[in-house]
């Protein structure tokens, strides 16, 4: 289970695009499709390998959406666990250097 002090990194084996408030993600390994809602999109876009989940929850979820810290933490860890299970996100207990996007 993801800890809130973990760092999140988007997998390289995905295609993704934000469409309005939603994000479309497809695994290039098994073509599984995911559509993230606006809260999921906020977490996804902040998964830069340098920001711990606790900060993402505080800065990107609680401050932007009408949700308590406790509820946001429960939902976000469940969400992260689900994406990790499908190889869409990876988690690390130390920051992960990222390549700059073109």
């Amino acid at each position, binding site marked *: 289970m993801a800890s809130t002090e973990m760092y999140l990194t988007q997998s*390289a084996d*995905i*295609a993704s*695009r934000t*469409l*309005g408030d939603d994000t479309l993600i497809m695994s290039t390994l098994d*073509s599984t*499709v995911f559509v993230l809602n606006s809260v999921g999109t906020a977490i996804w876009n902040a998964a830069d390998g340098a920001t711990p989940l606790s900060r993402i929850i505080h800065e990107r979820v609680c401050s932007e959406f009408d949700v308590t810290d406790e509820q946001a933490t429960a939902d976000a860890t469940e969400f992260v666990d689900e994406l990790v299970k499908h190889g869409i996100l990876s988690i690390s207990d130390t920051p992960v250097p990222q390549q700059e*996007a*073109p």
Partner: protein
Amino acid sequence: MSLLAEINDKATARGIPLAAHMDITWRCNERCVHCYLDHDGKGEMSTDEIKDVLRQLADCSTFFLSISGGEPLLRRDCFEILEYARALRFNVKLKTNAVMIGPKEAARIRKLGIEQVQISLYSHRPEVHDAITKLPGSLRRTTNAIRHLKANGVKVSITNVLMKYNSRDVKAVKQLAAELGVNFVVDPTITPMLNGDRSILSLGITAAELEEIMREDEYVGDAAEDCAPASSHDDDVLDGYSCSAGHSLAYISPFGDVYPCVQFPMPCGSVRRQTFREIWYDSPAFTELRSVRVRDLHTCSHCTHNASCSRCPGLAYMEGDFRGPSSVDCQKSYLRTGIPSAAMLGAENRVPLIPSGLVQISGLQRAIM
């Protein structure tokens, strides 16, 4: 409705070009007898120009990207372009004849996370396949490439384009696809050349052969459902569009010209003179295309097939009027159901129906692109 179909509908409603088809060259190392392109490479976009267009597409939220040609691997920068597209997180499909793909290239394609490699394969017999491509040894090289791709875990789909030369090989090609462990798609589509030359349509299969294909579950899924007479149409159908071309799909030529689809050569602009965003959202051609609903089609709006017809506005355009019927799709609806289309009924006393042997159809693939 599938998740991807829902997303496509949302993209259309929001005006997002969810899918783009980009030919990075029209040059080719094969000379397929039915090809709709000329193979002039003069004036192709540079690597930097293509990368710029890819960034613009990503900014417009394009997700599905088909890189095609010509033979895209003839460009020395093909892998650089693919790598750049993947770094921009596109879902990339590569359309190639694969004859330049060896073990090293296959491993590289896998490493890049290319979603699928789509390859045309015409026959299991070298004398037929190679005669169509006019490249000796091409069947052997293409099938070897498929084995390399499969060994690296790359998803491969072969398309069997049917012509009078190879139509009797369709079952054997399907069997070959099964042996190779790849997806198989049958495509009885012969398209007029983009310069308007329709002579290659004479290579198409006969109406009888097409009817046989359309009534086989193994090629069309549920043939009984596919061939059932159309249900009565309603306002949802009349308020809808013919296809995604220009609504959520754009085509970009190697020279930077933008069209609704590779099969719909209506000029909409050039990325060498304007941004893609300006063309997509503001060009008069796209605006006009998007204003047309099924109810605005002068003949098809009252056709009994309009809820189920695969009418291709690009083929209609190439016949002179994108608001008009596409005669080959009329023929297809007729062969599916035995019921003549409105255009056929209206034309009976004016012009002859399409003669056998000049059949082309599109839309058997019910995919998002």
